[in-house]
């Protein structure tokens, strides 16, 4: 109680200069760096120590209590304590003075301050003096004195951890007494008898020594062993021993064992002993693999081979099972093994779907312009699941193609193919791009065959950039058939989902809306323009907290949920400058949402960055964030600036926001 009263009084007395005390050590040190550097320079410390007590006493006067000690003086005293450790000539005098100050001090905090200095630089003979402090009625002094006594006696360094001898330690002692040839048999016996928790030490010891005899002993132990955990341990040991004698056993386990974990461990051991053994074991396994679980294990091994080793496996393809073929094609694709291209061409003529698909995927990465004719032909006749893979492969090959061979081949089909192939080719054309294919797609809108005109509309909907937007808008209003109009409208909607495109084409819409056309489409298009548009997208963001890593504030308005802003502290503010005043009527914010955490936030709007109006938020009702984000509507409010205040994160101190969308009605 007395302590509480003293603390309370101290708090009242010291409340006046509270501002200065609120500085963090980092801020304080930066502000006072010059003073501190001057006070703790080596020559200054040496001079102080040379002058003795008369120079030290003024420092002691500045140590009033824990709440009022002068930080420069306390830092200088600590620096003296470090200095005397490397200049022992002053150590005895200085530590004697520290002890004297501790003995003279009245307040507990001040006593502890001096004892703390002794903790760093006191002498062993001062330990006895700590006994009187240890008997103090004040608990903090007594506790501190015991700690200092321990430090002065250097008992820490001499302290021995008392740990009863474990079975492993007993074994080590026993092994030291045995002749070399008896070590391995003893280890194997201990391994088979001991508690599983003790075998680590045995295995560490078994890795070396004993030569071929020891390796054979461990292989025999493997054959006897029934516990899968111990079998794994022996396989690992065989790998670590570096003795190729065990390779046949490891290959056998890798190819035949029913325990897939053991297969994986055997592979790992072979990698250590001889990589070519892994390759030959894989060759055999690919010829027999029948289950997807075994395939998954083989895949883990295949992925670790070098490109040269993988090229060596291309000859195995024809003899492999369908799962083996799929695996090979998949790995060749992942590592872009160009030598495997003929296998891809072979695979796309197979009937087994997985092989077929993996063949197309390999070609996606490896096909060259030389394959343009055959790939275009095959892709246009692919069916089912293979069709989309084939089209992707064709598009990827075309993107890599600097000669234009794929685009020319597709153009040939568009101009001369039968209707079905022509329609498919048109739909593929946006992936190739180019002025000629674009003209064909525009012309197709007027084609008499519904299949062709529909394909033209779909192609233009997918066309990259904005060239297709006016064409689609006109077709949405004045397309030859209602079907073309409907498809074109769908394309317009997709294009205008991008706010930048929407803003640019509002004027175009005004021009074309007067055209005669399908009433239903006109109404739908009108409705589309009355739907809100995200006006925050792409706008600059400023924050008042540091950024974590490369999760910059601009990610908040980049229009995607794949990048996020990470602010290093909460509460945090992010201010979006919309560039001009907008009427905002709803907001949608997406927070990180993996672990059930909840973010408390509110949104404020302002026209001038001075007067803010709170329009949305979840204070007092924050729920765990979800991938759907938080959507709120409010009375339309005119604002140029929006301020997102993230007040709290239930998981940690930082804030993580994927996107902030602000919607403004764009109706004319």
């Amino acid at each position, binding site marked *: 109680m007395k302590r509480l009263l003293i*603390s309370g009084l*101290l*708090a009242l007395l010291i409340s006046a200069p509270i501002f200065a005390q609120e*500085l*963090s*050590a980092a801020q*304080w*040190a*930066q502000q006072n*760096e010059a003073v*501190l550097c001057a006070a*703790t320079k080596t020559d200054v410390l040496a001079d102080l120590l040379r002058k003795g007590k008369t120079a030290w006493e003024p420092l002691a006067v500045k140590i009033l209590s*824990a*709440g009022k000690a002068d930080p420069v003086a*306390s830092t200088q005293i*600590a620096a003296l304590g*470090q*200095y005397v450790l490397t200049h022992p000539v002053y150590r005895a005098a200085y530590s004697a003075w520290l002890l004297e100050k501790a003995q003279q001090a009245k307040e507990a905090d001040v006593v*502890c301050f001096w004892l703390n200095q002794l*903790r760093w630089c006191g002498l062993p003979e001062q330990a006895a003096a700590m006994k009187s402090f240890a008997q103090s009625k004040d*608990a903090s002094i007594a*506790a501190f004195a*015991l*700690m200092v006594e321990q*430090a002065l006696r250097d*008992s*820490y*360094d001499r*302290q021995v951890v008392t*740990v009863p001898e*474990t079975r492993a*330690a007993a074994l080590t002692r026993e092994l030291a007494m045995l002749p070399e040839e008896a070590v391995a048999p003893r280890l194997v016996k201990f391994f088979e008898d001991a*508690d*599983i928790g003790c075998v680590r030490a045995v295995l560490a010891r078994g890795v070396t020594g004993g030569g071929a005899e020891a390796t054979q002993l461990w292989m025999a132990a493997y054959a006897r*062993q*029934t*516990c*899968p*955990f111990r*079998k794994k*341990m022996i396989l690992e040991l065989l790998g670590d021993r570096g003795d190729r004698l065990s390779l046949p056993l490891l290959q056998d386990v890798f190819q035949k064992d*029913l325990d*897939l*974990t*053991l297969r994986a461990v055997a592979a790992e051991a072979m*990698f250590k002993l001889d990589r070519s053994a892994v390759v030959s074991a894989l060759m055999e396994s690919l010829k027999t693999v029948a289950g997807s*679980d075994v395939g998954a294990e083989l895949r883990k091994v295949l*992925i670790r081979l*070098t*490109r040269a080793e993988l090229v060596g496996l291309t000859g195995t393809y024809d003899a492999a099972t369908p799962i083996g073929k799929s695996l090979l094609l998949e790995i060749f694709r992942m*590592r872009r093994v160009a030598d495997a291209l003929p296998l891809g061409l072979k695979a796309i003529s197979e009937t087994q779907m997985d092989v077929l698909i993996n063949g197309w995927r390999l070609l996606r990465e490896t096909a060259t312009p030389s394959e343009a004719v055959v790939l275009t032909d095959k892709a246009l006749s692919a069916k089912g699941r293979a069709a989309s893979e084939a089209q992707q492969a064709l598009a990827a090959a075309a993107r890599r193609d600097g000669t234009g061979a794929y685009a020319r081949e597709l153009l040939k089909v568009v101009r001369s193919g039968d209707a079905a192939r022509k329609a498919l080719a048109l739909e593929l054309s946006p992936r190739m791009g180019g002025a000629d294919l674009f003209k064909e797609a525009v012309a197709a809108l007027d084609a008499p065959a519904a299949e062709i005109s529909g394909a033209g509309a779909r192609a233009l909907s997918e066309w990259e950039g904005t060239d297709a937007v006016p064409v689609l808008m006109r077709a949405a209003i004045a397309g030859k058939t209602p079907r073309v109009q409907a498809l074109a409208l769908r394309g317009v909607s997709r294009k205008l989902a991008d706010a930048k495109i929407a803003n640019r084409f509002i004027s175009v819409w005004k021009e074309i809306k007067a055209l005669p056309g399908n009433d239903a489409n006109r109404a739908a298009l009108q409705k589309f323009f009355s739907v809100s548009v995200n006006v925050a997208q792409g706008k600059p963001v400023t924050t008042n907290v*540091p950024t*974590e*890593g*490369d999760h910059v504030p601009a990610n908040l308005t980049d229009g995607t949920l794949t990048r996020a802003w990470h602010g*290093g502290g909460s509460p945090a503010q992010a201010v979006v400058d919309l560039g001009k005043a907008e009427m905002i009527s709803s907001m949608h914010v997406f927070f990180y949402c993996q*672990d*059930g*955490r909840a973010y408390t936030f509110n949104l404020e709007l302002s026209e001038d960055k001075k007067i803010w109006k709170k329009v949305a938020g979840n204070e007092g009702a924050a729920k765990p964030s979800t991938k759907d984000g938080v959507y709120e509507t409010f009375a339309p409010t005119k604002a140029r600036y929006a301020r997102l205040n993230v007040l709290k994160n239930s998981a*940690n101190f930082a804030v993580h926001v994927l996107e902030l969308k602000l919607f403004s009605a764009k109706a004319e």
Partner: protein
Amino acid sequence: MSRYENRRGFLKKAAALTGFTIIPAHVLHSATAPSNQLTRALVGFGGIAHSGNHLGYRATRLIALCDPDANRVKEGLTLAEKNGYGKIHGCKDFREILAMPDVDIVHICTPPHWHGLISVMAAQAGKDIWCEKPMTRTIGEGKRVMEAVKANGRIFRLNTWFRFLGGFYGFGTEVKPLKKIMENRLLGWPVRAVVGSVTGFSLKFYWSGKTNLTPQPVPANLDYDLWLGPAPYKPYHPHRVHSNFRGYWDYDGGGLGDMGQHYLDPVQYLLEKDDTSPIRVDVDCPKQHPDAVGSFRRITYTYADGCQIILDGDDSMKGAPFLEGPKGRVWPRLRSDIPNLKSILEELPDPAPQQVDFVDAVKRRKTFALNENNGFRSCTIVNLGLVAMRLGRGFSFDPVRLCAVNDPAADRFITQPMRKPWVM
């Protein structure tokens, strides 16, 4: 026979039984019947223990938690029940947890001044250990943890993961491709790793202590003496405890203490320094207050083979973070002055796999990927920087004897005494 022995015996028999069947082991591993599931206790229920990764870690069953703050124990028990663990045991003193025979894994979520001591006591009590970063507050304590874990045959997991999981913060890529670059000496050798403010050090500068705290009454719900434990007894102030303790040398080391091991452990792995430490550390920082942690401008670590790690605390180095060797540089997202780096990487095999399944490591008694040995080394990088900051100068370090070279002032920070009755 104690309940603990019975439980381990059961798991052992379960393991042995699998030998008589042809059921693949991974099928058995997936079994989650309570009797076949490892159990875990949370020691300390502050910010980190609240996280979904810890409270919601389903691979083990949470059966107890403790904290010297009664309010936190109460909150922890409620949250544990909400998370589906039912009514678990809650207490103030971690020694009660260590005495529980049913606890397999002790998960240490306390401030760092407790990490070393509880790890050693848990190892001596036969528990496996999952410890938050930084591994220990001093190098001396880390050494003791290594010794105790080894002597008692325990499995130790240090909780940072960038060397084997997820994107390597600030480098915009996983560690794996960087490891391939280093293993194959694409940059040449020795390599200099520059870790800049983008990786978090300057960000965390605000985790600094305050000078001259006015003593205040200890709240009734907090056992302040137990919270302090081995740390010196200093007057209570709310800024010392709970979420602000990182700003005081007695309990942690500010932003570097908090985040350093996260960022430096993968760097150590890349530089192939899992079994050694720098021989020299140099520092440029404002003079540090004896009680409250401040900031640093730059810390430079040098290894015996010439490799260096530079912590750019004030953003004065251009382009950080990056890895640089005699043959080239790599910046975030694998940007490099080595032509066709990405296609070269595709031709190189992946690095050797790591043991990243902690439950599997405990069951099979396999060393976890980030363990008491390499975790100690990466924590030593952090602690060497902190010692240099406190000294206000650089010093030389002996990575074998684990002490400073002819520098008793540095040694006093490397090995620090504990307040009685606590001792390691």
